[in-house]
């Protein structure tokens, strides 16, 4: 589904990632573990085209996507959920979902609005509320729902449990398992091994921009 090999990336003169190689097979939940600053977010951003890779290859369903624009990558069916949520706080919940909406794909699970609201019941009570007036946990739910509205084949999830109350972290784990059941491939960046241990099929560990041998 997703293959990365020899990936180097960074910001300006500072290189952050060194020779990253990883893969996620169809329907897998793969964890990317590491502490803050290890390069987890940068890896996801480089895959998504938000940080241009310096060298290396990124393939999505066999097609090379390194060097492509983020919107092209998103339209191929790769979704991205950023670490700091970045929902559109001036827009309502329904409008946030509308921004993420893409046409249905034959070979990916489809997420109609009803579907999404069933997965995130809390959102159905606040469709007209502006994103800025939601709690952190609700924002995180919306952020995932917004990406799912694009009917992705795979998603990159950046620290979905960061800064959330223990109770909401529980719910988040449930959502990830639900995604797996629906057949969405997930690449999950996390600091907490306790969390990934419950949801991931297997994992990679990053340290100072390099993968540790498994």
């Amino acid at each position, binding site marked *: 589904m997703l293959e990365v090999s020899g990936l180097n990336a960074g910001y300006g*003169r500072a290189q952050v990632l060194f020779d990253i190689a990883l893969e996620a097979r169809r329907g897998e939940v793969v964890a990317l573990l590491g502490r803050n600053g290890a390069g987890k977010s940068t890896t996801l951003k480089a895959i*998504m085209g*938000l940080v241009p890779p310096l060298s290396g290859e990124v393939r999505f369903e066999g097609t090379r996507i390194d060097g492509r*624009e*983020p*919107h092209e990558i*998103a*339209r191929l069916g790769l979704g*991205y959920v*950023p670490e700091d949520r*970045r929902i*559109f*706080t*001036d*827009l309502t919940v329904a*409008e*946030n979902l*509308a*921004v*993420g909406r*893409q046409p249905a794909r034959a070979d990916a699970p489809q997420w109609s609005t009803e579907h999404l609201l069933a997965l995130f019941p809390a959102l159905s009570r606040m469709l007209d509320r502006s994103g800025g007036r939601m709690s952190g946990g609700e924002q995180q739910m919306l952020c995932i729902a*917004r*990406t799912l509205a*694009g009917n992705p084949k795979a998603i990159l999830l950046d620290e979905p449990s960061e800064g959330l109350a223990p109770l909401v972290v529980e719910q988040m784990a449930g959502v990830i398992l639900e995604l797996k059941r629906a057949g969405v491939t997930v690449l999950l960046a996390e600091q907490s091994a306790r969390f990934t241990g419950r949801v991931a099929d297997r994992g990679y560990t990053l340290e100072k921009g390099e993968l540790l041998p498994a």
Partner: protein
Amino acid sequence: MSGSAVLLQFLNGLSGASALFLVAAGLSLIFGVTRIVNFAHGSLYMLGMYLAVWLSARIGFWASVPLAAALVAAGGAAVEMLLLRRIYKAPELFQLLATFAVVLLVKDLALWAWGPEDTLGPRAPGFAGAVEIAGRAFPQYDLLLIGLGPLVFLLLYLLLTKTRWGILVRAATQDREMVGALGVNQKLLFTAVFMLGAGLAGLGGALVIPREPASLEIDLAVVSDAFVVVVVGGLGSIPGAFLAALLIGEIKAFCIGLGYSKITLAVEFIVMAVVLVLRPWGLLGRPQAAMRGPAALEAPLDPPSGRAVAALLALFAGLAAIPAFTTGYTLVLLTDVLVFALFAASLHFMMGPGGMASFGHAAYFGLGAYGAGVLLLRLAAPMELALALAPLFALAGALVFGWFCVRLSGVYLAMLTLAFAQIAWSIAFQWDAVTGGSNGLIGVWPAAWLASKTAFYYAALLVCAAALALLWRLVFSPFGYALRASRDSALRAEAIGIPVRAVQWAAFCVAGLFAGLAGALFAFSKGSISPETLSVPRSVEGLVMVLLGGVQTLTGPVWGAALFTWLEDSVSRGFEYWRAAIGGVILLLVLAFPRGVAGFVRERIAR
């Protein structure tokens, strides 16, 4: 004033507000999505006017209005695709400079195509007459305009809230990168928004031709009005722009109607001041929290090494020796270089260590120059005293304007400095009794012992060198450190007891004071002062000098000033379209070195 006259002025204000709203709404939309403050927005408006006048002579007024708007929209799209697309990732200031280059190019394009004279448009067929309102005649066309403003507002509102495209625009206004990661093609979105904004400006221009003649000065006048509207209304808020346009339109109408057209700007200023004190982010705007703060990775600034100081002293000695070799035009040019080096360095002080970009720094240069002229000619002060006291005029201006400016940051601050500079320019332009109006002041000559080119050159060299040394010393003083700390992180600076606003205000005043000194020297070196001295192009020249040399270097502004002064001198002598030439140079600079010349050199060295 009778009740009916009040009503009529009120209606007058409403019709003026409509065109203003169209321009401001476009500016706000474009800024929201692309984060570019489109300096050329007034030029698009001006282009709309000229095109409509020209077209209406051929295809009639009513056909010319939409066609002119469409042509301006197409022009806007071309500018976005050919120019802006290449610089979205460049520093904010470079983007502003690029759009200012467009201002210069469009101005000379209009000069070339339609000549320097003001051009009157036709009356609108079917709306040429007047209707009687409360016993007085009121132009039918103005009534039409009154209706058009709210109509366009309504359409824009529906577009932004009810269509998917509008939702995408609003989402991109907040976080364009995220919109891209969700599968939306930003390039298309940006071009479309720029087209819409440009089209609105063109429409605004085309619609006013039955009321006002097209002129080459309208571009900067309109864009600074639009800046005021946008700052008062709240940047990015279309309803805010509508409300503020009404407010400003009414103020203009009543001041003119009461026969006080000269105080219009002063009243506008007071209104803006009151709004900004009560709501720093505008009537309907939101706090700037969503905007990204100043770059966390500002380059470190080290005190000059012993070798650098020695090199500067050698340079000073070299400059002091020059009159031994030449006494001709070179000395005049070098005096200019010295004056502009000080001007650029004062601007750099607030831009570099202070992180406050000013688009109206010429206001303080001009205040110093006019201060010198007024002291010498109107108050009969001796030249030495005039030179010493003139910077205080600039200081006074900086005290007042700066108090407001430091309440904002980033592009908001830049827009406000521009609006203040435009106000200063208008006062200089209109206050005949003191400033000599459009003719300016003549006979501002130095004292007899400084009358020769050589003597004045030495005076300028001494004063500028001392002032530069003082400015640079300041950068590494505790005050200069507190200023840099406030720029790096205002949050942290406050949290360790630094009164951020007070520090920035003080820095604003220091920059104003030194610019005023440069202005006073400039006045005496030329013997005359014209309103050009504090015009917006002069402010932009200062910016170009600073950026040429590099914002993150201490002596950069001096080299930038030297290069630019020399360049301007060789290009502009006897060339009618010198503005376009300067614009071309700026574009070349921006496109060839999108990270700044200093950044370019640094990258080269690092390699």
